[in-house]
């Protein structure tokens, strides 16, 4: 049975109250807590290293898979490999996420290496939420790595959220996009205290008419630091867009390092980056509606990261 702390973490990262229905794999404190394959989604534990292999049958539609990870034992460090093989013509949602409760003084760390192999004409929505809590002095560290291969006409949308309690994160995502395939990345980050978050994206647009949007919205508070690195390489007739939109507050710092590289003359690539504090006129507008400056600030930040 999971305890209350673990259940709360599960709710935070996956919106689940207990073990989910359908296909799932739940990892608690470094061990596989439970897994369930469904008719179309097979989950097999890896034999050579920690992690799972997931096979989604061709043509699987409107099914979802949950693979949350919960760490409530202070000082636990783990590295997990999950491979996703998504068959042709699928339309599926994958909900991942990691919640750490660290009540001790040692560093807890979860690093997941996710590889996605998306076959022709498949559509995948991947949602990942990172959350940390704990009253000890131990740090919560998450270093996720993702590798994405999109075959012809496929489409993948990655939504990643890290709003609270992760002291240090270093995320790396690399992707290769084939003909007529599209990768959308939407990242939302809020850091506070003395946290640091580094996110790095590298997308290669290899196929004709391939495309990508890599969009990051973030808020950095207190003395936290964020760095957003994105590289888009246009190797064919393609369209790529990367955007970093950050609000800085207090003594926080943010750096954005976009790089777009057009190898093919028909590649159309755009990068945008905007970093700044909350616009004064936004605060004033909400104050004329009766909000205090602090309430206005909260409202603007919550909306921005919604």
């Amino acid at each position, binding site marked *: 049975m999971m305890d209350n702390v673990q259940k709360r973490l599960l709710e935070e990262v996956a919106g689940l109250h207990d073990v989910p229905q359908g296909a799932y794999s739940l990892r608690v404190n470094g061990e596989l807590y439970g897994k369930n394959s469904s008719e179309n989604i097979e989950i097999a534990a890896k034999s050579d290293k920690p992690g799972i292999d997931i096979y989604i049958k061709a043509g699987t539609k409107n099914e979802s898979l949950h693979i949350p990870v919960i760490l409530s034992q202070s000082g636990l460090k783990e590295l997990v490999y999950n491979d996703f093989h998504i068959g042709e013509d699928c339309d599926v949602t994958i909900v991942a996420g990691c919640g750490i409760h660290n009540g001790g003084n040692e560093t807890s760390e979860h690093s997941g290496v996710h590889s996605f192999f998306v076959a022709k004409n498949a559509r995948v929505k991947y949602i990942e939420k990172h959350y940390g809590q704990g009253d000890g002095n131990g740090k919560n560290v998450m270093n996720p790595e993702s590798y994405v291969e999109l075959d012809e006409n496929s489409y993948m949308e990655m939504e990643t959220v890290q709003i609270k309690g992760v002291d240090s994160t270093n995320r790396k995502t690399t992707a290769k996009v084939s003909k007529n395939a599209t990768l959308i990345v939407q990242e939302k980050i809020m850091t506070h205290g003395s946290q640091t978050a580094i996110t790095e994206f590298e997308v290669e647009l290899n196929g004709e008419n391939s495309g990508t949007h890599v969009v990051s919205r973030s808020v950095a508070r207190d003395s936290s630091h964020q760095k957003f690195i994105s590289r888009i390489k246009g190797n064919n007739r393609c369209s790529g867009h990367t955007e970093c*939109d950050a609000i800085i507050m207090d003594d926080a710092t943010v750096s954005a390092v976009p790089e777009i590289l057009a190898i093919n003359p028909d590649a159309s690539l755009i990068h945008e980056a905007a970093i700044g504090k909350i616009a004064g006129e936004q605060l*004033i507008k909400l*104050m004329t509606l*009766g909000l205090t400056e602090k309430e206005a600030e909260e409202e603007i930040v919550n909306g921005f990261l919604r």
Partner: protein
Amino acid sequence: MLEFRNVSYSVGDKEILKNVNLTLDDRFIAITGPNGSGKSTVAKLIAGIIKPTEGRIFMNGEDITDMSITERARAGISFAFQQPVRFKGIKVKDLISLAAGKSATISEACSYLSEVGLCAKDYVNREVDGSLSGGELKRIEIAMINARGTRISVFDEPEAGIDLWSFNNLIEVFEKMHERTNGMIIIISHQERILNIADKIVVLANGGVADYGNKNDVFPKLMDVRSGCYYTRKS
């Protein structure tokens, strides 16, 4: 009632308002005047966005000069910006709720939006960002003032960006707003048709009050086709 007593406002060496004395206490008051005459400054002084360099401002006899924007908003002053502000991620419904001071139901939000000529179901869940046109933002701005329903509402050029055919609508909005709040509506405008519905008109020129009186007295002097505006001519 709003009262300006010996109010001056300067930025650096530039004096924008000079010793203005003004008592506003009617249903509809229009403030007009040439560009740079200090109209928007008056509106911002009322809302508390800027503070007078000299002089005091009173609301119903109470000195509000040192009150913050938030305190004035809570005391019953609303202000519609000339250029509405955009917000990433905040939806039309959120702003209407904040303005109403409570979570607005869809049907409440809808009634405020339809009143300003926006089809509510297309707008309640839209973000108040760059995807809305200037005219749409302007109407949402007015809907917010409507949702607040305070005793004093100040509009800084509400007609700018609103197409002509919906003009009558706008005037109706002001009339209904007055019926509901039984308060005072102050409109900064150059628009003849807005000046025409005012009870009183304040004419600002060169940082001072050039005239203030009943519409029937002031309006003809502004609209003299042959010789141009009496007040700018005089100055």
